[in-house]
């Protein structure tokens, strides 16, 4: 029976368990109140059915205590659900420091996936088990939605911005990948598979696939081809980028932002909008000259220059 009529999706990530517990709790609340209301209605319908056409029932009064009770008890239940759900949500929104990264580009109507080590995939995502993975996503055209039901994660993929989610798969297997934000004619064909592999299988898969240079290597190459390396050096017209990623940075307009993927992207296509103090506004825009994949490679390169390198340098 369960095979042809399953009522539960597979749960294959560390997030899934917490979400399912809340889901069961909510299902319990729903069943309790639905059964309560239905049975009271049926009981009253039978007990107080009209016995003669001109029957006039006695008057009843609404005690304030009762009204308050059924105002306050649902309120209390809602407060509990809110805190429970928000706790999980905030937790599920903060990737662990040990996460490795995978990049996703959505376009009508396929998922383009890029591993930092180099391999690229279409509509397939190979990941190792028991390893937190942060997915950084952007879209080349319209809004898409990246959804892996078995992991209980979902996030829309927007053009012109990076959104990210993370997961840690804890069960080897093959799971669905869907697009859940309607994106045009073949929206329902924008699906794929997630392969969760044991660490050793994953290593073998990485080694056995097509050998591309790693994303940061490709980024480094672009960095010099586009001429970035001419200015972004110590004493150059632009700030040296080593050690900048992930740090708070004060900008010429007085604001402070953390240097993250979206900010680097902005620096590439709108350099003047993230002007640093002590530097002249001389960087040209690279808007329209890079595709989303190259953009991600540049970001991977800047990231590879991350805080560690500064630590080493100092």
């Amino acid at each position, binding site marked *: 029976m369960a095979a042809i009529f399953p*009522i*539960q*999706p597979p749960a294959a990530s560390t997030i899934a368990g*917490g*979400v399912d517990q*809340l*889901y069961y709790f*909510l299902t319990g*609340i*729903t069943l309790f*109140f639905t059964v309560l*209301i239905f049975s*009271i209605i049926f009981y*009253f*319908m039978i007990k107080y*059915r*009209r016995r003669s056409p*001109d*029957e*006039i*029932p006695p*008057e*009843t009064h*609404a005690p304030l205590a009762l*009204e308050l009770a*059924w*105002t306050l008890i*649902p*309120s209390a239940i*809602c407060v509990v*659900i*809110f805190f*429970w*759900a928000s706790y999980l*949500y905030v937790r599920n929104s903060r990737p662990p420091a040990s996460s490795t990264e995978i990049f996703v580009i959505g376009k009508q109507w396929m998922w383009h996936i890029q591993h930092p080590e180099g391999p690229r995939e279409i509509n397939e995502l190979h990941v190792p088990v028991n390893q937190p993975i942060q997915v950084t996503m952007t879209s080349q*055209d*319209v809004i898409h*939605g990246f*959804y892996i*039901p*078995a992991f*209980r994660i*979902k*996030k*829309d993929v*927007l053009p012109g*911005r990076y*959104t990210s989610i993370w997961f840690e798969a804890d069960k080897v297997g093959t799971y*669905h990948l*869907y*697009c859940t934000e*309607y*994106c*045009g*004619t*073949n*929206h*329902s*064909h924008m*699906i794929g598979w997630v392969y969760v592999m044991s660490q050793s299988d994953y290593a073998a898969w990485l080694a056995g696939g097509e050998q591309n240079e790693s994303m940061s290597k490709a980024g480094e190459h672009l960095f010099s081809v586009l001429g970035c390396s001419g200015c972004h050096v110590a004493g150059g017209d632009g700030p040296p980028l080593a050690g900048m990623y992930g740090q708070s940075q004060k900008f010429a307009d007085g604001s402070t932002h953390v240097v993250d993927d979206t900010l680097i992207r902005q620096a590439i296509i709108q350099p003047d909008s993230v002007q640093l103090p002590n530097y002249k506004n001389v960087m040209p825009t690279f808007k329209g000259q890079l595709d989303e994949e190259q953009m991600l490679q540049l970001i991977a390169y800047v990231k590879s220059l991350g805080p560690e390198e500064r630590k080493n340098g100092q």
Partner: protein
Amino acid sequence: MSTATLDLPPAVPAESRVTYLNATYGIKSWLLTKDHKRIGLLYLATITIMFMFGGLAAFFMRLHLIEPQGALVEPETYNKLFTIHGIIMVFFFLVPSIPATLGNFCIPLMIGARDVAFPKLNLLSWYVFVTGCLLALVAIFSGGVDTGWTFYTPYSSTYSHTAVTWMAMGIFIAGFSSILTGLNFVVTIHKMRAPGMTWFRLPLFIWAMYATSIIFILGTPVIAITLFLLALERTLHVGIFDPALGGDPLLFQHMFWFYSHPAVYIMILPGMGVVSELITAFSRKKIFGYSFVAFSSIAIAVISFIVWGHHMFVTGQSIYAGLIFSVLSFLVAIPSAVKVFNWTATLYKGSISYDAPMLYALGFIGLFTMGGLTGLFLASLATDVHLNGTYFVVAHFHYIMVGGAVMAYLGGIHFWWPKITGRMYPDLWARIAAALIFLGFNLTFFPQFVMGYMGMPRRYAVYPAEFQVLNVLSSAGASILAVGYAIPLIYLFWSMRYGPIAPQNPWGAKGLEWEAAPTPPPTENFDVMPVVTEDAYNYQPLKGAHHSV
């Protein structure tokens, strides 16, 4: 309810009296009428036609989905079908359904007025609505629209090659009809009540219509301007919602849902009002906790405006905004729960009869309870991440909009049908239809909750084979639902001509529309203007003259 009213001989058949139906004849007398009752019927006819278009689209969708690879049409056509279904049902059926038909017909009768405050404006709003409908139909028949009823940018503004601008303009124009109707109702309820009809003697249907009108007035202009900006962006491409040009697609979603979430309450609040009338009339009881039910309508109307962000928890909205919108969303559960408990308690020690309208009302309470409780899954952040954009959402809002609003609409139509037409419909058929609709509805939409939790995304023309059993169940339910809707359509039409003449007050219900106005009413509603001396739903024969029927 009222004492100083006429003593109408109950036996006078409608034919020998002058009523609003036979006061004048001819197409012109209907198309140029300023009578709120006739305008209500014009709306009834219009939205019934629109309902058939929307229903037909749903029929083809469910037929298509019985096979995982799609049994009927190409994905492109399927996308247009669900878009048309959504747009027609939301903007051209559900939003005007109860307010423009029953609201128009009943508000002046229930508060003891000759007409609404601005009869000409009322007629104008119907013409505006028809213009909107025609534009929408032009959009449909010139190739359709494939954006989904939510018109998310940049798909709708840049990528879709369908008749988006036409459809946006149709909705824009129909919006003005909502605004004018809401304005008319608020003024009518404030300024036109009969002597003695204080705020706390008003039937709860009036409170609900008042709350609905607030949403009409404050929400509709925002969707109008949003769709206008969308049309502008499609024409000029300056980047108002296009990220490639510096725009923010999420701003569209904010502005869209600022109206479209309250719009859900435009659909359900009038239904709640109708159900308050039905429950009291068919259990012959005063409503349990009148002021709680009345104020919860106003509370729902206000809170409905501060929860829209729960549609955007996973669309890239800030996590901080997500937390704010989540806590605000839970607020709306409280007044809804208060209503359900009070309706149920009204039955206590009542004299309950099972006429068809009551079956619809009881069905409403059950389905609305389920629809409301499943809303908790979507207001709470962690579960919404999993369920958003899946069939769970589809099931949830159909429980509210179809299980709630449409059940109440049909209940209301059956309740006031004798008042509207002066004829009775076959009660047995009506009860069969009510039962079929309840069963068919649950069979259609309950499997969709499971599908959604299993992870099936909405708006999919083809789907993985493991969901087929649930989809076939759902389609089977839809066919029962279709039969359930067809039956009332047939016997109600039939009864207009062949139904037995209705008595003055067939249900023995309280309220000025039953006790003070003849059935069917004359053009100016009352032969003698009523004076109100008692509370609503006073079924006790103790004080004042009681008209037993």
